[in-house]
């Protein structure tokens, strides 16, 4: 053993680490940063494992985590490790920052290291925030919507970042932020932070302490840190096993029905009171204030006695943080970012109605849009799109007949409003089409301010916009099939229930006749996509319909038929989705 020790000592010399550090470096207060670092290591290892099971798309993200949690033996544990390590990291990084603040450890010559520390703190909060989005439940979705709305207010690069590319969703952007950009930033800054700690030495205590006034070595400090690391890992493992984190239902748009994680509860209160702009301003003030701390408090003494003013500000900030957090737990969330569907609906209808009036006044030529189905049960999206089509036809006419570029530009701005009102709905069906349509309309809108506009190009763009709008109309017309299929699904579920609970064959047969009518109405459309499915579905429904007149119907067979019909209808729905 001693031979091995000397062999190892020769190859791994530790003398370089055996330099002196003050004894107080081994106290818990001076080890908080080290515990954050240990939590980071746990987060990285567990995160790499979790990433193997995660799908960063809005369609699959939530489901991929569910599969990990329910179908893998250690799924809950690994996710729990990641979750609880994140809690430890955020708590210890805050305590570490507070310790440095109250001990005045940022004072000369450690100002730059304080700034790096603030960047690390923001990086940790950023990692925590992006991590909460990845689970893609209601809370995650609302957090993302808040970020997008905030970025819109801030504008510039932030707003551009939140513009979704047809092939790259915001969720995948946040996945990339969480797993590559932010960790790289944190690791790089952390390396410099640690080098500066080594170069500048451990900061002195701001008060006299008999207990911790001696000297120690860095190797002892490392052993101390290892001990805390093991305890941290043990505690996190126990929590991950006993209290694995939950996962909410996949998100639904149009509402704000959740509260953020505890760390954001305090700013949630501010948002409740002052709206999103209040949140942005507060966050900005907090960051600027943190960055300025060493340049405001420039006295040589680190003793809290000599820094009563700044210490008092710090205490008040901490108390406000706690009070706002507690308040948020007992407050019902306000609708901060106008996610309310009713509001969106009203906005959309207002725009559509306004344009209705304008269109009537302008007396545009409606003959060109006769090919659009003007059904009586037209959806709001279809109405808006038809309105958009009228406007684009009008723009084309203005360009061709009057050559009035300015007026065409004005109409394009109206068109932009109409399409924007249903932008999300178009995007949900075809993100690429939404993007292309937005780009063309934007270019048309620029005609107003163009100095020497190209009439031919503008006319081409108007034609292109017309085609895109017609494509969008088709998307929403297609939903008629989905509507019918969903109706069929409800009917078949009802039939199944009637058979199971009442055994009423006659009633089931009557419902099957209704079902037959619904499916027949879209029979051609199903056949166009899957002939076999159409035929099989027709046959099953026909058999179910015969229950009305059957003398000795077989309940089990009828029930099986109903189940089979349900599966076929679900398959048909998938075809149209």
């Amino acid at each position, binding site marked *: 053993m001693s031979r091995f020790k000397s062999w190892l000592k020769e190859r791994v010399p530790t003398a370089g680490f055996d330099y002196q550090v003050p*004894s107080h470096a*081994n106290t818990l207060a001076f080890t908080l940063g080290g515990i954050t670092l240990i939590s980071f290591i746990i987060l990285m290892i567990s995160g790499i494992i979790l990433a193997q099971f995660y799908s960063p798309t809005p369609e699959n993200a939530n489901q991929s985590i*569910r599969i990990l*949690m*329910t179908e893998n033996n*250690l799924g809950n*544990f690994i996710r729990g490790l990641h979750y609880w390590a994140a809690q430890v990291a955020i708590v210890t990084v805050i305590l570490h920052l507070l310790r440095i603040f109250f001990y005045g450890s940022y004072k000369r010559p450690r100002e730059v290291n304080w700034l790096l520390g603030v960047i690390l703190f923001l990086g940790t909060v950023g990692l925590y925030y992006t991590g909460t989005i990845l689970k893609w439940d*209601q*809370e995650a979705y609302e957090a993302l919507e808040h970020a997008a709305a905030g970025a819109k207010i801030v504008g510039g690069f932030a707003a551009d970042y939140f513009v979704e590319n047809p092939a790259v969703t915001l969720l995948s952007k946040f996945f990339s932020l969480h797993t590559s950009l932010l960790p790289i930033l944190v690791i790089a800054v952390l390396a410099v932070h640690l080098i500066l700690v080594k170069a500048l030495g451990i900061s002195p205590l701001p008060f006299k302490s008999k*207990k*911790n*006034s*001696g*000297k120690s070595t860095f190797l*002892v400090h490392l*052993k*101390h840190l*290892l*001990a*805390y690391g*093991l*305890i941290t*890992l*043990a*505690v996190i*493992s*126990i929590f*991950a*096993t*006993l*209290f*694995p*984190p*939950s*996962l*909410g*239902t*996949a998100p*639904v748009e*149009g*509402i704000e*029905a*959740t*509260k953020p994680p505890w760390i954001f509860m305090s700013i949630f209160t501010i948002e409740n009171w002052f709206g999103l702009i209040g949140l942005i301003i507060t966050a900005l003030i907090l960051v600027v204030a943190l960055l300025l701390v060493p340049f405001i408090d420039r006295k040589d003494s680190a003793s809290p006695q000599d820094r009563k003013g700044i210490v008092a500000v710090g205490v008040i900030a901490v108390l406000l943080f706690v009070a706002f957090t507690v308040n948020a737990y007992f407050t*019902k969330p306000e609708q901060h970012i106008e996610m309310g*569907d009713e509001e969106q*609906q009203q906005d959309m*209808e207002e725009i559509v*109605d306004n344009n209705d009036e304008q269109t009537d006044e302008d007396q545009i030529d409606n003959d060109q849009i006769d090919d659009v189905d003007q059904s009586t049960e037209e*959806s*709001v999206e279809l*109405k808006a799109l038809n309105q958009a089509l009228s406007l684009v036809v009008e723009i084309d006419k203005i360009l061709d007949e009057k050559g009035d570029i300015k007026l065409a530009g004005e109409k394009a701005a109206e068109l932009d409003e109409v399409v924007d009102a249903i932008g999300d709905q178009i995007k949900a069906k075809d993100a690429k089409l939404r993007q292309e349509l937005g780009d063309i309309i934007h270019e048309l809108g620029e005609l107003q301010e163009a100095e020497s506009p190209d009439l031919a190009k503008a006319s081409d763009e108007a034609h292109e916009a017309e085609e895109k709008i017609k494509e969008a109309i088709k998307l929403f017309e297609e939903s008629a099939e989905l*509507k019918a299929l*969903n*109706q069929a699904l*409800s009917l078949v*579920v*009802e039939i199944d*229930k009637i058979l199971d609970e009442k055994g009423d064959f006659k009633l089931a047969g009557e419902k099957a006749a209704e079902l037959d009518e619904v499916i027949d109405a879209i029979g051609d459309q199903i056949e166009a996509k899957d002939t076999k499915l159409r035929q099989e579905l027709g046959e099953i429904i026909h058999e179910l319909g015969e229950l009305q007149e059957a003398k000795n119907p077989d309940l089990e067979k009828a029930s099986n038929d109903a189940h089979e019909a349900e599966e076929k209808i*679900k398959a048909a729905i998938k075809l149209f989705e």
Partner: protein
Amino acid sequence: MHKRLFSILFALLLLLSVAIPVFSHGAEEEAVDVRVLVRQAIAYVEGIADIEMAENKLNEAIEQNEDQKLADPTKLQEALIALEEERLEEANILMLEAIGGNPSELELNPEFQIGVINIILLVIAAILLAVGLILLNKTKTKRGEMNNE
């Protein structure tokens, strides 16, 4: 007399023709998908347990479903009763089933279960904790020795 009656009828006709867009506008409000409304109701229950908002959304869904027929009306009604009686878990399941969803899509709350894997994990954690505490105690003693020097 006839002229007067004709004038009144004409005025009524004119009024009605002006009023038609108002009536038609009322019908346009019914545009939100029933399934979205039901999912919103579930989100209110799961998120902040706001039963009132959930009931509003569900009532709206029930109303819309009369036209859209996208959900099972019986289950929606049952879900509303469950909500009113604050049987939240049951209400969520009923709502989800009403729109053809599966209860496995609802909030997943894994709980600790006594099993081989969990016991092994806890034993490992206990060993780590013990080693950590011993090491901490050792280094503290060393630190004390150094301080006394």
